[in-house]
């Protein structure tokens, strides 16, 4: 897994790519998300366009970040959820937890509508 990050309109956009399966790679995303939270960057979009697949470790990282942000007055939104990841979100019922958007622009824009 690789990870890139940028800021768009004051919102942190994290773009992992490859597979999120656990082990040292997965900690890249986990560490980055929690660094953002610690540095008071509490509005985050995770762009999943480049993620081939993830397992329960990846879902756990997203849920952990979602709850930590929410408990600290922040928010995490998903963008470009692939069919494979969407089906995992459906299986695990996490589709009812995450707010997902068809593009990063749409996800970033949604922060202003809250």
């Amino acid at each position: 897994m690789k990870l890139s990050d940028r800021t768009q309109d004051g919102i942190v956009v994290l773009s992992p790519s490859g597979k999120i399966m656990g082990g040292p790679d997965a900690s890249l995303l986990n560490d980055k998300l929690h660094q953002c939270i610690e540095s008071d960057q509490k509005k985050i979009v995770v762009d999943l366009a480049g993620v081939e697949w993830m397992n329960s470790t990846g879902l756990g990282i997203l849920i952990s970040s979602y709850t930590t942000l929410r408990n600290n007055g922040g928010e995490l939104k998903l963008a470009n959820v692939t069919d494979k990841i969407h089906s995992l979100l459906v299986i695990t019922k996490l589709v009812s937890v995450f707010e997902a958007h068809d593009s990063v622009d749409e996800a970033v824009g949604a922060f202003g509508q809250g």
Partner: protein
Amino acid sequence: MDKPVIKGNTITVPSKLDHLADVDLFIEGILRGYGTDESLIADIAISVSELVNNAVSHGNQGESDKIVSVSIEKTNGSVSIAVTDEGGGFNPGEIANPVADENLLKDVGRGIFIVNSLMDTVETKKSDKGTTVVITKSLQ
């Protein structure tokens, strides 16, 4: 053992999460050799990664001097994959239902649930030497 060993259709790795990618590369390569659909490869790869994660973290309880072996076999249009660790296994009944409202926001506990959802069969066999989980999936 300090690095993965491949013999035929079996890969044996030291019991460390660092080797998840080695197992994935091996299994996906063989599945592509079978001409398997990419979406099906992903479902199987996700399931294998869950089982290896469990074998390392729970079966072998993080003891890196232990090993995990993963074997793959194709028979009658189905693929069968066995993941073996050196631990005593677990009771699936002890795992909380991850889709129950009270568990939905927990960050762990979904692995076996996902495997059961994606695969056709999941069978656990225990022996004196360890625990083997065998998953099967139709390739048709």
